[in-house]
């Protein structure tokens, strides 16, 4: 796994220069610089459903921000009161007033925080949901090109980046802006000159933030990308670890990992060095603010222009002024990283989904299937099917035979519309399948694939995947037909046994039996068996054969198999060779022709003196 990946990732900076001509939908290629506003503006609609709650939060924020200003004001009054009168009665009232203001202030803050936690998490949930739905709508061809790990990284790391920005509180943003505004107004009301003098910190702050942002934006973009790549490397290494171990290639896997890990480290240092610098520097700037106020205020007080109480209030305001500034700076950074994450998420949204303009719904299929001059290749220069025509009558069992790589599985890929044929047409009951809605089409095709995929869940749930509403009894009946019941009952918890991704507890053949049970349960109009029993021993297969024959009765079936004994009874055998239909007919006829089929059949014992 060190190979191609290293080649594609090493000259990373060169990538954007070479617009994705080769792989138009490759996710790695989408990462070009985008307008940050687009990503943000696409995030905003996720807050739309919470409009009324947000209004409520805004009200709370405004209220507590206002209260936050009243506190120091009262304190200034209290100090001046102390200085001039020294009367305790008035002081008690002031102190009580302050206390009331502070309690209310914190109470409102807590309520707003709680509310925001709900809003933000629900908005993020929606984003994840949409991303998942999007991923599911992507065409099959997409999944070969991108790496699973990178895709996973978008759902976790990138959404997490947005989460960190939001959970650092959108309320902080509003509260900070408001309190800054409020403080400025309050300062101007108190003393115009002091206020003017203190405002000089603001431009410095903005300039500095802008300066840093230029680096952080790029930094986070690189970091999220590198993280995605590292994720890809790790995912492939872990899911392929058994093979790597058998070939003593762990070291290579480790080296590839280390290289990408180091890249993430460097990108992380770069992005965070700039991003995290903002916070301490803002603190220092805040101090500077206080110092200027104290110095200048002292000077003015000496000249008798302001009272000491006002200076105290000003310094208190200054402290409060710095906090929101610091938080804003911090938030600004998280937003940079959130934008980088959002861009990667929306890049998936922008990959064209599986196209389906068809409107036709299927009812009562008789199951006539015809291929008419079908031409198809996965790449323009590698045509798999050149000009294929055949017809399957309703209820026929059609066997597809031919050397490996002749295009048998491709025929299935076209029939299911995983891919669309380049020219020619495929018809079911005389209707072009391109006019039939994909879900309708696929619902009528029962597919048993070569590679059996099992989900983590119980045996029962995995079989029920064929028909979700099936009862436990129906599931078991299907398993019995597929000859799977016997071994399932021997599992530690029978049908309730949890299967894992690697399903170490099941043999390949047993997994195939589960897949067959799944198809039996689905009860489709057209059945497709793609090497469905290749890992099942022949005696078990012979027993399943009976079940399959019963299953095939009355429905059109396509069978791909290398064991010719499996297909000798087919109504029609199609021999595919070099992307063309080489021969077709029944077993006996084809044998008599002494052509390709005859050669394939007899080779089963070629060279053996039986």
């Amino acid at each position, binding site marked *: *796994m060190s190979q191609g990946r290293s080649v594609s990732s090493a000259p990373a900076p060169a990538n954007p220069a070479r617009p994705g001509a080769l792989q138009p939908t490759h996710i790695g290629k989408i990462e070009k610089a985008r307008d940050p506003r687009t990503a943000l503006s696409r995030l905003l609609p996720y807050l739309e459903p919470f409009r009324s709650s947000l209004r409520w939060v805004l009200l709370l924020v405004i209220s507590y921000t206002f209260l936050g200003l009243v*506190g120091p004001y009262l304190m200034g009054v209290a100090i001046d009161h*102390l*200085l001039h009168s*020294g009367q305790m009665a008035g002081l008690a009232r002031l102190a009580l007033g302050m*206390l009331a203001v502070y*309690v209310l202030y914190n109470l409102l803050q807590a309520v707003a*925080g*709680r509310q925001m936690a709900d809003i933000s*998490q*629900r908005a*993020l*949930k929606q984003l994840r949901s949409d991303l*998942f739905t999007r991923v599911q709508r992507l065409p099959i061809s997409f999944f*070969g090109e991108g790496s699973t790990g990178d895709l*996973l990284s978008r759902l*976790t790391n990138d959404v997490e980046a947005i989460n960190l920005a939001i*959970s650092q509180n959108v309320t902080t943003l509003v509260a900070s802006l408001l309190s800054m505004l409020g403080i400025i107004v309050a300062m101007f009301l108190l003393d115009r000159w002091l206020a003017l003098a203190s405002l000089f910190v603001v431009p410095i702050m903005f300039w500095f933030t802008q300066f840093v942002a230029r680096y952080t934006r790029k930094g986070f973009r690189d970091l999220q990308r590198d993280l995605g790549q590292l994720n890809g490397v790790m*995912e492939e*290494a872990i*899911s*392929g670890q*058994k093979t790597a*171990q058998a070939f003593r290639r*762990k070291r290579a896997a480790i080296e590839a990992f280390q290289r990408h890990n*180091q890249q993430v*480290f460097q990108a992380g240092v770069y992005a*965070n060095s700039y991003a*995290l610098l903002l916070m*301490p*520097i803002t603190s220092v700037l805040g101090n500077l603010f206080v*110092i200027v106020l104290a110095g200048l205020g*002292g*000077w003015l007080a000496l000249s008798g222009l302001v009272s*000491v109480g006002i*200076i105290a209030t000003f310094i*208190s305001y200054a*402290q409060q002024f710095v906090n929101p500034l610091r938080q804003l700076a911090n938030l600004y950074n998280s937003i940079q990283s959130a934008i980088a994450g959002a861009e990667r998420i929306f890049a998936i949204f922008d990959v064209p989904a599986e196209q389906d303009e068809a409107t036709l719904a299927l009812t009562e299929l008789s199951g006539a299937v015809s291929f008419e001059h079908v031409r198809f290749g996965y790449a323009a220069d590698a045509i798999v099917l050149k000009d294929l025509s055949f017809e399957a009558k309703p209820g026929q069992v059609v066997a597809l035979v*031919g050397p490996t*790589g002749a295009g048998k*599985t491709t025929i299935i890929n076209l029939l*299911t519309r995983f891919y669309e044929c380049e020219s020619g047409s495929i018809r079911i009951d005389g209707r072009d399948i391109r006019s039939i809605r*994909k879900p309708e089409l*696929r619902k009528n*095709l029962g597919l048993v*694939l070569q590679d059996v*995929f099992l989900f983590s869940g119980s045996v029962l749930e995995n079989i029920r*995947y064929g028909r979700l509403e099936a009862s436990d009894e129906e599931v078991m009946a299907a398993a019995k037909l597929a000859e799977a019941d016997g071994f399932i009952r021997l599992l530690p918890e029978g049908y309730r046994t949890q299967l894992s*991704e690697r399903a170490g507890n099941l043999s390949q053949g047993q997994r*195939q039996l589960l897949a067959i049970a*799944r198809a039996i349960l689905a009860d489709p109009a057209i059945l497709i068996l793609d090497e469905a029993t290749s890992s099942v*021993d*022949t*005696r078990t297969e012979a027993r399943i054969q009976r079940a399959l024959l019963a299953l095939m009765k009355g429905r059109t079936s396509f069978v791909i198999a290398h*064991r010719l004994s499996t297909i000798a009874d087919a109504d029609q055998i199609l021999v595919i060779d070099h992307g063309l239909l080489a021969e077709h007919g029944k077993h006996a006829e084809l044998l008599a022709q002494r052509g390709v089929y005859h*050669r*394939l059949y007899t080779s*089963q014992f070629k*060279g053996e003196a*039986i």
Partner: protein
Amino acid sequence: MASVVKLLRFAKPYWLRSLLALVLLTLLVVLDLSIPRLIQSLIDHGVLAHDRRLVIRISLLMLGVSALSVFVAVGNNDLSVRVGESVARDLREALFLKIQTFSYGNLDQQKTGQLMVRLTSDTGAVQRLMQITLRIGTRAPLLMVGSLLLMISTSPTLALTMLPLLLLTSGLIVFFLVKQEPMFRFVQQRLDRMNTVLQENVAGIRLVKAFVREPFEEQRFDIANQAYCDQSAKVMRFAAFMPPALTLCVNAGLVAVIWAGGLERARGTLSIGQIVAFTNYLLTTMTPLVMMTMLSNIWASGIASAKRLDEVLSVVPEVSDAKGARTLLVSAAPRLVFENVTFAYDGAVSDAVLKQVSFVADPGQTVAILGATGAGKSTLVKLIPRFYDVTSGRVTLDGVDVRSVTEDSLLAAIGIVPQESLLFSGNVRDNIRYGQPEASEEQVVAAARAAQAHDFVMKMSAGYDSRVEQRGANFSGGQRQRLALARALLLRPKLLILDDSTSAVDVETETLIQNALTAQSEPQTRIVVAQRISTVLRADKILVLDGGRIVAQGNHAELLRSSQVYREIFASQLGSAHLPALLEPGAAL
């Protein structure tokens, strides 16, 4: 906490930098604290005493302090970022290396989705813990202690009234930390689940689409997503109480200062400047308190993740080199012996998959294994390269127990083509020379020819440079198997294991492969798991496995005569019509 202590060793190589970062941080805090003090003397001695020069001097001094703190802050920032990122990198690496030591048995129990969450999200949480601790870890407590000390020196009696308040805030922080940690652990568990659903969906997308299960999968994801969302919101709702609770403490302190200070002022024991300074100290405490809430959040989630990382890091590989393991030296085709081998995946003999299996494969022999689905064929061959260890009995190569040699030398002698032929993303050439990256072009082509892969590879537009997608998704099953075979043949192993590795290859091609194998010049012991009689016809010895036991062994002709099971298998493939003739004496061979 124990797992955090364990994880501290990842910070060890960076202790000097960490220490320096903390020293700089402390300095920064001291500088920060000096400002209110200076302001106090500016008001008391400058403004109130009408000392214009003092006002200027103190102002300039404060500017100097400010400038110095810029440098200190930048230094601390650089160090803390580096240490944080380094620890994250090392942690990821340790975790990845650990996972690499997992044997098949360990891997069977792990979901890729879960391991991925640990490698990303959990290391991220620990990284934040490190980084934030170095940035504000000492700041908050120091600022608080420093403020307290200064308050005491300003007015001991006033300070005393603040003491319970400080204790209260410290208590609050600990309370939140302890309460949040398990909550964060639940969050991560929900994330595991969600990630697994996504990972399975991407890996099984063809199935999902074929069965039109998108709505069902969306529902499944929604459940996981909702659970994660609920748990995250729960933590955050809880955390939302923390900053207000803490600031309320400080605010209450402010009120107390004004009240109590007012009383003292009335008695003339406190200056106005002192009261102003006092309120300043309290406000200075407020900032670190807000930081403290952040710190507590990050610590809680960091500790939760550290525990989860520790779980993976403390997994004991089921199979590892024995102490004093020797290097296996296999010069020629080895003799493979199974002696009374019993094996159960969970170690419980009652669930044994293989029972008392004994057989011998002599040097250069081809031994085929035939049997019903689930009979234990694949399991048997997996014991040879020690993917799993026998439960009892032993497996020997040239008389040496496979458990007594190093994994590396054992695997070097063995070439294996697994049932699931997994290819890696990259190109065809690199996939073939996967086991020996330095192999020459001739070797690659020779291996591909023997595996009957050369022709179809050459038909592809880019030949051996053609792209292979993740898991080899752009190749047909038969093509994948042949590439996997070429990959094993390239190694010219002394012992070749084919685990039903030509099931998706047509019979004609398979015959060509067999011919190529027999034509190899070097002797090779071969163990072949198969379903097809045609695959095993020429084997020197055929083992018929049934229910984990060897029920018959011998060559084709012998078994036809002696084994009912074998005859049934034969009949199931060729029809019983062939049988009578074969059973006539003298007809065989």
